[in-house]
């Protein structure tokens, strides 16, 4: 499957989904005005990928900031991953800065509500 690369901008995150290298990373800032529009291709790509996923998928969130509109789209991504985690090995890796308690709280919130393997990685 073709990888999905989206360069970061000052208000949208970088996306690096590359099944060949088994890399799945969303990083940087997610402050788009229209989060649905930004995440639409991301969700579409993911849906395709999950039809024939790698044996193991570690999905990494390395976000510095995200707005509430993005929070909802991230919820969508996680729900989709949760759905497929019954058929294949999927882990969420939630990265956060050790001083950024709010980012840890946001990650824990998702982890609590989802039935999926969830790791927290402090930096």
């Amino acid at each position, binding site marked *: 499957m073709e990888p999905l690369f989206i360069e970061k901008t*000052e*208000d949208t995150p970088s996306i690096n989904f590359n099944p060949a290298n088994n890399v799945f990373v969303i990083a940087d800032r997610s*402050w788009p*005005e*229209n*989060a*649905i*529009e930004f995440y639409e291709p991301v969700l579409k790509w993911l849906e395709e990928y999950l039809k024939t996923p790698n044996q193991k998928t570690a999905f990494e969130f390395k976000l510095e*900031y995200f*707005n*509430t*509109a993005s*929070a*909802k789209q991230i*919820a*969508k991504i996680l*729900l989709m991953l949760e759905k497929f985690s019954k058929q294949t090995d999927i882990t969420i890796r939630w990265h956060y*800065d050790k*001083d*950024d*308690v*709010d*980012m840890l709280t946001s990650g824990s*919130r998702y982890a*609590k*509500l989802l039935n999926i393997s969830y790791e927290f990685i402090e930096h």
Partner: protein
Amino acid sequence: MEDFSKYNNEEFIYELFSDSHDNDLNYIFRGQFSQNITDSILALAEKNIEQVAETLKVRKRIYFILLECLQNITRYQPNKVSEIEESAIFVIQKRNNKYFVSSGNLIYNDKVEYVRSRLEIINSLDQDQLNRYYKEVLSNGAMTKEGGGGLGLIEMARKSGQKLMYDFKKIDETYSFFYYQISMESAAPANTPKLSAALSLEKVMGFHNGLVQKNILLIYSSIFLQETMLSVITVVGKQLNGSVLFQKKIYNILVELFQNIIRHGKNPDKHIEGNPGIFFIVDRPDTYGLTCGNYIVNEKINNLEERILLINSFDEKKLENFYSERLFNFDKINKFESGLGLIDMRIKSGSKLCYEIKKVNETYSFFILHVSVIK
């Protein structure tokens, strides 16, 4: 229940707003000016000027004037400027197709007469004479040890093509405030003329005093756009000191506040794209107060009030549950709506949301939202 009475200043805020919101650009900054802050103020101004179809020549000139004013502030800023009352003021406005840059900074009392005499000479000269005077000052090396020797002021007069307005106000035995204003014609296509004028220098001086009294650090009153949002946030972030967590909280809350205006605000003036709004920061002993104001349609008021009161009535646990429930509720969301913004601000700030509403006419009201963030 939160005591809203202490925030009973919607008249004051609306006055500030309506005084300035139909400016194409309105940006008032008060505080300590570091290199960091002046850089981000310039970046913001640049973004704002990019939004209007301005010629390269005018853009470069206005940019030069801004830079020169800001450098005057940092260069002549006396070393011991710790008191908040002594901080400088910087105002950028665009009104009726004219830019106005006003600046006020501290200078030593014994420099006042020198600066005044320079300004008197500059204002007495026409464009040709100014050019000659510039060369003369440049060649005879009449530079002061701070650099300059009035070259900056001469250049501003040359580039703006207008007289400089100025005034001095003695603060104490050591310092005075030096205020000046430069105006410049815009080359962009004219908008519909507006009735009210830009802040005169006299008003800027009075205004400065008002900001000091109310401990307002920064006011940004303009059309709110995603494109300029980041530059404003950067300026704010650099002005507020605090831990990494605090900085991140401020950034997150500002994004929600600004995007509230961008998405949900209204613009009664159909000729202009984007929503007008006002934003300011108040410095209090233990908290920073972040305030935003914008138009909303009257029919939305009840719903909005109910939501704020509901969110304010929750304790920490209920808030968390409410957030989680909304987070995974994808019903009835349009492309801009998440329904989470207010809850998020309430959680991140750790304090109740305060609001004020002022009815403007049959269709619109002015809605003000205050968020206090603990330092």
